[in-house]
């Protein structure tokens, strides 16, 4: 058995550091897998390919969190076109104006101090 040199999360964060939204694809299951894993949950296979998303998706669910202090902010689930769903935030728009079905485009929220980069989205208009 060879020791795994790089964890799935490290690879994912490495893509984000390059401005990319990385995800896994299982050839055996013929589907995207997210969050990144060591094995495919459909087949049990360790054979998972890393791919980079084109960065377009659709808002699947949305809410506006009202913290006890500070401004309300959006939290959304986004269905990315390559066939996986992730939690994110839609920016450059009033939180209450984020609607289910809205087309959105990926961008990186860069690392800040100890906090690693993470994927956010902005309205994509009619862009494909």
């Amino acid at each position, binding site marked *: 058995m060879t020791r795994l040199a790089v964890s799935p999360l490290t690879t994912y964060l490495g893509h984000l550091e390059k401005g990319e939204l990385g995800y896994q694809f299982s050839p055996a299951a013929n589907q995207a897998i997210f*969050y990144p894993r060591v094995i495919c949950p459909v087949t049990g296979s360790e054979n998972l390919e890393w791919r980079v998303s084109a960065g377009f998706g659709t808002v699947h*669910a949305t809410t*506006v*969190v009202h*913290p006890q202090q500070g401004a*309300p902010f959006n939290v*959304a689930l986004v269905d990315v076109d390559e066939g996986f769903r992730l*939690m994110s935030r839609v920016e450059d728009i009033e939180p209450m104006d984020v609607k*289910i079905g809205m087309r959105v485009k990926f961008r990186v929220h860069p690392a800040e101090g100890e906090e*690693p980069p993470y994927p956010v989205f902005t309205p994509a208009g009619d862009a494909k």
Partner: protein
Amino acid sequence: MSGLTRGCAAIVGVAESDLGAVAALMSPLDLMAQGIARALDDCGLTLKDVDGLFCATTQARTSAMSLAEYLRLPDAYTDSTIVGGSSFEVHVAHAQAAIAAGLCTVAVVAYGSTQRTVGRRAASAREYNPYETPFKPFLPATAYAMAASRHMHEFGTTREQLAEVAVAARQWAQLNPAAWEKKPLTVADVLGARMVSYPLTVRDCCLVTDGGGAVIVTSAERAKSLKKAPVYVLGCGQSITHASISSMPDLTHTGAIRSGAEAYKMAGLAAKDIDVLALYDAFTINTILFLEDLGFCAKGEGGPFVAGGRIVPGGSLAVNTNGGGLSYCHPGMYGLFLLIEATRQLRGECGERQVKDAKTALAHGNGGVLSAQATVILGTEAAL
């Protein structure tokens, strides 16, 4: 759960510990022990009879070990399965299996929480999830809010219909001496309350209280000779579809569809046969989802179904007669209280809120963020 036999075990004792805001420096184990002593008294058994410990709390990593120490029961069969608020419905199924397999004869299912006293953050430490935590979801409310957003989008469910669930729960709570919140509540009050995670206001969310309790389970044979009429375990089922909301397969269809189907199959009953419902109402959307997924109305019709007074006291369907997690008590993992209320209804002990001639009850537990669903169907001897 298909290997279990309908009615081979029974709930024979139930009790709450102190609820609401408990005495300073009470521990979760103190509350479990208090519940166990009271539940044993309820059925006429003693601590010496107990040989199975089933328990869960977010405040003790190895709660069965701690409880075995506290009660000095080194030989007890133990199970501290923890899948959130539905842990106790799972424990009943596991206890039934353990009793059937001869691993124990008298099982206690116990819970304790001091989350109001110590603070929610201290009672239940949040685990860092690299795929969710950066977005600062206010969990669990944000997850349920997103499920509500889908239900509103797909089926036209309204905030007013969500609010009806909270109003009904409050009206039931007003009939329960043990309930924490009894102030009159209107739909307008719910809509106008502080927003937590849109569309859920603080009145769409469960209470934050202390509390605990215990349920005693034994074989149907042993149950016959105890203080009160046995409440038989007719059916059990569970389904764990995800742990975090971003991995939920379908935000408007929960694992209750499967857990309910399993429980109904084992019980040989259908939704139309159930007299009393105890549904885990951590948030108002829960009651709507579970009424649909457990077959009391069609998918998508839960909003109109709960409107117009159908689930208030005197309505056509008795749902959460203790006032629920929304108005009676919610110490973080509410599932044990569903079993306590269902048992009391089947014994006819519920006073003003008693459902007349109740012979069957369904307790449906929910854990995590609509993650772990577990259903227990209970019945009186007449339902055997």
